[in-house]
């Protein structure tokens, strides 16, 4: 241990304090191990706070026919069957208990007149399934878990950025990074590390994601040798704000459509009648996003390149009760009163289905001692995630990852050794932007990588475009070696941005390399040059891994659904 960094040690280190990280930390602490929880910003501000519409769980409070089997089938179909069915089964079975648990911990949901938890309809869910609190369900979830965690003996480290996983031989030994406040370096030793770092929507310009969504955890896992899966699957949420420019991409919850919102084009036509006459506005997100895209391409878009979403027929009182933050958001930021007229919406990057490949139910990655849960983990959502399934994902698999990491940590003999050489290597990388030869502005590189992703890895993709995008990213990676920062280590956003950009460029490369390989259209991945689904590709997941000479891409077989579960998929199709 060296004297130039702050040293800490836990049995289980959880990186990320959104829903998955908090739930994992609680579970690990309850299992009796010493837990450290690191957040990049202040506690309670993680991206989970922005979740709006609800948490999907087959309670059957409004529709008694709903049960885990229907939820399982909906989720598999939504993911176009490249999901890991074992994860989906666990998920559908355990989600209801995780919701009731939130309630026992003080979380409050909207109620039915009989006093049960109210559930609302959502895209591609057969029944009314989303437990919710108006349109601020994520806030309720994070606050409930936050208060539980701080009273469970979890030690919270706020505003710490971890930028490298430390290893002792093949296994995890902890993580290294710095405190944002003053740039002090910090090395945290741990027997097990749980990544709960969320997604990387910030690789796109038009996104509903907050600044933190730069994919640090996934990129660190890649650098540590873990396998990443389904990286080509990036979800466009059909409805983001469009105008004015500063708010472009901010989420307009699917609950607007769940509460009866209707989509129209510039000619006033309800175009979803053409694309999915059965489910209409409540079709799955990939379908609705593509439909809006096609309408705009055909010249029937709204003035700022989107569609009109109208819920005003539900009446002002109802809207203000069920969609209060949407009402407020449009009134304050866009001068639009949604109780009186339509809002303008367009697809916005919302979620990544891909991420760290994990053992189903345990969250263990392919690196011993490294676990992952929530958006950073792959496998549950396949090629497209259903609305409301992310919040239940966080609590179901957060809990499991916490339990399994604690069990793993208890089985580790002695503390893994912190290698100061690895820490020093990372320190030099972090400080490089202060070198005199550095010239590149990290914000400029960020904007350029976003431009490349928007242009070449958007809703509609082609092989040619993807290859051009990959070239661009590779050249940006070279320029990223020369990023510059000014000033001191004291709370310095320009310096922080340099490491974020490096992480994001790794993930951009992974998205392009996987998207080039998948020569078919499935879920969120729409190839204009391969517009149809291909049965062969339907049996494969793409895996990205760090090789001796850069990034390698290979395939893994999608786990075959056993007959008793396959029957469910056919029964309710």
């Amino acid at each position, binding site marked *: 241990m060296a004297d130039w960094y702050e040293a800490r040690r836990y049995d289980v280190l959880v990186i990320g304090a959104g829903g998955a990280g908090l739930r994992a930390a609680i579970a690990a602490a309850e299992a009796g191990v010493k837990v450290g929880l690191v957040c990049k*910003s202040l506690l309670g501000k993680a991206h989970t706070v922005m979740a709006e519409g609800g948490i999907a769980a087959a309670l059957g409070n409004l529709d008694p026919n709903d049960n885990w089997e229907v939820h399982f089938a909906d989720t598999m179909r939504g993911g176009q069957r490249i999901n890991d069915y074992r994860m989906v089964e666990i998920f559908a079975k355990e989600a209801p208990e995780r919701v009731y648990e939130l309630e026992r911990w003080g979380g*409050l949901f909207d109620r039915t007149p*009989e006093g049960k938890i109210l559930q609302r309809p959502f895209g591609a869910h057969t029944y009314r399934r989303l437990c919710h609190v108006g349109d601020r369900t994520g806030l309720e979830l994070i606050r409930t878990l936050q208060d539980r965690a701080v009273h469970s003996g979890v030690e919270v480290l706020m505003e710490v950025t971890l930028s490298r996983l430390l290893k002792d031989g093949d296994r995890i030994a902890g993580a290294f990074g710095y405190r944002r406040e003053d740039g002090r370096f910090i090395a945290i030793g741990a027997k097990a590390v749980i990544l709960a770092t969320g997604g990387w929507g910030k690789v796109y310009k038009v996104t509903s994601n907050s600044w933190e969504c730069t994919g640090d955890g996934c990129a660190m896992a890649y650098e540590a040798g873990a396998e990443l899966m389904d990286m080509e699957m990036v979800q466009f949420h059909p409805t983001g704000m469009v105008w004015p420019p500063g708010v472009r991409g901010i989420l307009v919850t699917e609950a607007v459509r769940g509460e009866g919102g209707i989509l129209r084009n510039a000619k006033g036509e309800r175009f979803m009648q053409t694309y999915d006459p059965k489910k209409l506005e409540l079709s799955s997100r990939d379908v609705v996003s593509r439909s809006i895209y096609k309408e705009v391409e055909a010249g029937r878009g709204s003035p700022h390149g989107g569609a009109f979403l109208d819920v005003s027929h539900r009446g002002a009182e109802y809207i203000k009760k069920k969609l209060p933050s949407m009402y*407020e958001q449009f009134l304050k*930021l866009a001068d639009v009163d949604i109780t009186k007229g339509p809002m303008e919406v367009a697809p916005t990057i919302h979620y990544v289905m891909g991420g760290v490949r994990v053992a189903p139910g345990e969250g263990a990655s392919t690196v011993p001692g490294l676990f992952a849960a929530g958006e950073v983990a792959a496998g549950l959502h396949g090629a497209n995630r259903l609305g409301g399934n992310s919040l239940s994902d966080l609590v179901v698999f957060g809990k499991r990852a916490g339990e399994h990491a604690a069990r793993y940590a208890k089985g580790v003999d002695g503390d893994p050794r912190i290698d100061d050489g690895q820490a020093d290597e990372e320190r030099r990388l972090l400080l490089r932007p202060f070198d005199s030869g550095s010239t590149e502005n990290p914000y400029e590189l960020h904007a350029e990588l976003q431009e490349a992703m928007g242009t070449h890895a958007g809703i509609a993709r082609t092989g040619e475009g993807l290859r051009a995008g990959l070239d661009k990213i590779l050249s940006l990676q070279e320029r990223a070696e020369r990023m510059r920062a000014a000033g001191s280590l004291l709370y310095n956003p*320009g310096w922080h941005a340099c490491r974020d950009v490096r992480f994001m460029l790794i993930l951009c490369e992974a998205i392009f390399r996987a998207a080039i390989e998948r020569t078919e259209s499935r879920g969120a991945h729409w190839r204009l040059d391969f517009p149809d689904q291909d049965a062969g590709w339907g049996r494969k997941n793409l895996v990205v891994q760090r090789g001796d000479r850069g990034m390698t891409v290979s395939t893994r077989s999608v786990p075959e659904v056993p007959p008793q579960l396959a029957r469910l998929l056919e029964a309710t199709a």
Partner: protein
Amino acid sequence: MTDATLHVFRGDKTGGDLRTYQVPVTEGMVVLDAIHYIQQHEDSTLACRWNCKAAKCGSCSAEVNGKPRLMCKTRLDQFMGSPVTVRPLAAFPLIKDLVTDVSWNYRVNQEIPPFTPARDDTGPWRMYPEDVDRMFEFRRCIECFLCQDVCHVLREHDGTSRYYGPRFMVRIAGLEMHPKDTVSRAHLLRGRGGIGFCNITKCCEEVCPEEIHITDNAIIPLKERVADEYFDPWRALLRAFRGRREPRGT
């Protein structure tokens, strides 16, 4: 395109002053957009907190023209071209530029006994809309700490050792009024919570971006609860006979 003039506080614990920036204005722009413009084009060391840029996380709190506000929700066009001054929250110790040390709030939250239902009451629960509706308001809090910043007990009288501040009165109200909670926090409110220090000036309500009626719906009912438990003569008599065991308040 016109320019906006921003005077932004730059400095750290050792001191600082306002620095002036010109920022090109686009339609619908908010103060946080202007701060980002400065970071990206003028000075990448300008420190501010932000996360969602959609008024949901409560990170980008600052004092804009002297008023505590969320920068992501403060449109530039309302200032009609006049210069805009942006300063950090004054009630908390400065770290750098617009970033302050708000960790005291997290320590306070840890002192508050958490939600505690009866051990054998494991649910699923029946709670009727009329029983929970009034609590939703308290649960809307995004912890931006603007109410803490404006509270004169904390801000002008250095009262952090005496009063938890409006945010935590809201938090405690949400717990106390939960139909399934079994713990009384009246003792805490009267003691370390320092509810008596609030003299109901309602400044906190004015700055709350979630429009929570902090004073009317949280602080005053809690004050009544404390008064009931400690100053009601009938209850004092009951206490004399029964020891400290008290029925729950309203």
